[in-house]
């Protein structure tokens, strides 16, 4: 949305502050630094590319000799003069990407994937279970791989010379690891069954209702999509196309009802669900407010958000943008602190 480096840097700073303030000491919480390194790497890479495949500009900083290339790679320049403008363009673009990466990382390190999946509507429960099981299987796979690799050192001391030996080496690792994984998944399935998984599911009547509603939703949304693609004539009232809008609303409504119906057939409860409180609303309002201000600015004076590099203009932070940044930083102060672990780890 913006390439204003000051705004981007401020936003990255805000995201880091908020994340540091409210992340927990969970494994996914600790992954945040990884994203920070990735962001830094992106910025450096963008700058390096600008130097390597230099683009012209009036202010030359460094006059590197150009590497002569054959004719058939026309359009690509290797080295050559490095201009301030091209470097800045690289920096702005890099910062933009870095901001996105840092934001994704923040979301990833703040949310517990399991809690998130548990909050899904009942209809998605099975899907959620599959994902949870897959997520927890991964570290186990890593563990058994480590164990098998270690155990391998005990046998076959002679080095793999021929190709067949090398293939054999792969086999000696893959076979035990996969057998292990298979045995584990069977044990897990048995354990889930023993503890009542799937007992409440599938009461035929509501299952049928949800199927019908689902099909209805697909039909309605399909019809709307067709009209949209074909740009069909429509009756407009107050500038709103009536038929298309009705189709869309009815389709979405039917889809929601279908999810409700299939969710209602599942008698499952959730232990200590996350409650939506005033804190959550404030945090959401802060985010929405900041986005709103930037969006409103983009609709008006776009020069603040996208400062030009040719001719070179020093990017500015208007008071309104500062308000947006401050608003975005607010959750660091008002958001509830991560639930302190009641027991020492």
């Amino acid at each position, binding site marked *: 949305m913006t390439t204003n480096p000051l705004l981007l840097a401020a936003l990255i700073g805000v995201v880091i502050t908020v994340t540091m303030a409210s992340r927990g000491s969970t494994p996914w919480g600790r992954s945040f630094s990884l994203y920070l390194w990735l962001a830094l790497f992106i910025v450096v890479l963008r700058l390096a590319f600008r130097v390597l495949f230099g683009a012209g500009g009036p202010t030359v900083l460094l006059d590197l000799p150009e590497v002569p290339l054959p004719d058939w790679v026309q359009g690509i320049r290797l080295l050559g003069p490095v201009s301030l403008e091209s470097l800045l363009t690289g920096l702005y673009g890099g910062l933009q990407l870095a901001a996105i990466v840092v934001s994704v990382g923040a979301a990833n390190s703040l949310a517990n994937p399991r809690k998130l999946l548990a909050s899904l509507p009942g209809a998605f429960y099975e899907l959620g279970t599959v994902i949870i099981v897959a997520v927890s299987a991964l570290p186990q796979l890593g563990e058994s791989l480590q164990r098998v690799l270690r155990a391998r050192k005990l046998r076959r001391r002679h080095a793999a010379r021929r190709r067949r030996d090398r293939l054999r080496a792969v086999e000696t690792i893959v076979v035990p690891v996969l057998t292990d994984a298979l045995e584990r998944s069977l044990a897990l399935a048995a354990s889930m069954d023993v503890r009542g998984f799937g*007992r409440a599911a599938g009461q035929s009547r509501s299952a049928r209702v949800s199927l019908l509603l689902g099909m209805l939703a697909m039909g309605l949304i399909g019809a709307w999509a067709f009209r949209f693609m074909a740009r069909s004539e429509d009756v407009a009232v107050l500038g709103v196309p009536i038929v298309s809008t009705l189709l869309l609303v009815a389709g979405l409504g039917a889809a929601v009802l279908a999810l409700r119906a299939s969710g209602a057939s599942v008698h499952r409860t959730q232990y200590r669900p996350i409650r939506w409180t005033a804190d959550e609303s404030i945090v959401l309002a802060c985010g929405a407010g900041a986005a709103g201000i930037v969006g409103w600015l983009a609709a008006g004076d776009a020069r603040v958000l996208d400062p030009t590099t040719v001719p070179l203009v020093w990017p500015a932070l208007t008071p309104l943008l500062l308000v947006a940044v401050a608003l975005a930083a607010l959750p660091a102060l008002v958001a509830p602190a991560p639930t302190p672990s009641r027991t020492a780890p």
Partner: protein
Amino acid sequence: MIRFDAISFRYAGDATLRLSDVSFSIDEGELCLVVGPTGSGKSTLLGCLNNLVPRFTGGVRAGRILIDGRDTTLLPPRELATTVGYVGQDPLAGFVTDTVEDEIAYSMEQLGFAPAEMRRRVEETLDLLGIADLRERPLRTLSGGQQQRVAIASVLATSPRVLALDEPTSALDPIAAEEVLAIVSRLVRDLGTTVVIAEHRMERVIEFADSVLLVGDDVRHGDTRTMLAGARVRPPLVELGSKLGWSPLPLTIREGRRAASEQRRAWMERRPALPTAPPPGPPALTGHRVTVAYDDHVAVDGVDLTLHRGEVTALMGRNGCGKSSLMWALHGAGPRRSGTVTVHDGAAVSLVPQTPTDLLYLTSVAAECAAADDAAGVEDGTTAELLQRLVPGIELAAHPRDLSEGQKLAVVLAVELVGNPGVVLLDEPTRGLDYAAKAVLSEIIADMAAEGRSVLIATHDVEMVAQTCHRVVVMAEGELVSDGPTRDVLAGSALLATQVAKVANPIPLLTVEEFLDAR
């Protein structure tokens, strides 16, 4: 409470019956110990309680099962979730969620308990099993005993009337096992839960048990003392009692000590001659200030250890005290931060890891043997011959994964021994072995020592150590805390003493044979 009515079971495509015409009934509030050699069908029988057998394992089952007056023969396991709580051997493999609290709540979530009720029950269960301080801990970071307690808690939360435990302590050190079994006996006493428990080391459970279910060629159920009098495998104390004709047969150390009080007094006046360990041979392997450290902790802290030829040494200590790390460091395949390991006279060192199947990856025992011959550069068929000598009767065409635990261990041992190692390191070889398999293992180890090899065994099994080992080394927190002849170390310790040692204390006798000889 539980009634089996002419239950027979066989796997599909296999004509041999795993269970044949089994009938018995267990009363409410009874703790029933299931005893029998490996592969006799103990796990199958426990699985029948909540229909995991045959719903999950496949196979054909005939007969009827009634639990709590209800015919459960045809119900799927999930319908029995509130009736039968089932805990398997490896708690970690059965965990569905990632924290203690969620794991306990999981079953109730599935059954649609009201949130308030669920909350109350989670709290109660946490207190009942004494794991309230672990509530938010990730399951993977718990110790083995804690994991097993959480697993029991997770099935208890829905208050089932019957609890089926399939070897709950097989992977635990003695202290952790005590913890788990104490909880189980408390459940029987305080809640009146009917518990059916399979356990190899029955000396741990026998004092709590009301009845014994003997699984062998046929299945018999009856009062603990009567069943034990006729059983082939028995705990050392019961063995001693029946050899000496003590009546009633002692089941607890207290009863044993009372029965032996006269004998002890006689010994106090005239101390019996005790067999002495043979003098150790020349050193085979010397570790000097061996230190193993991982990122966050020191596993082995400057250990000095010398293994001698022809000597069997036991390495004991809590789970996670650094036994495995030390073994791997001595072998050379594991990491070692500092210190030296010297192998004398160019002897080869071989190590059998905790999960021996990690070393087996071919599709048949014969192929594994041939690969071992090839790797060791010996004549074809040497390994197979060795294997037959170790444990006769292993099908060479069988898949290694289909063998029993004892047989798997034998295959790995054969594969390792064919390289003629001078030092053999065994990491918890007794895990999952029954009395018969352990007796065979003891013989193999004694033979190895007689051939002049040096053997180091990490184990929790004090009875096995008393039978086989000349010397005991105890580790704690990465350091050696005691090192000496088996008799001195075991008899002088409160936790590591064998049953016979506890009965004979202060006379340092360790095994039934020693007790009988000393009279």
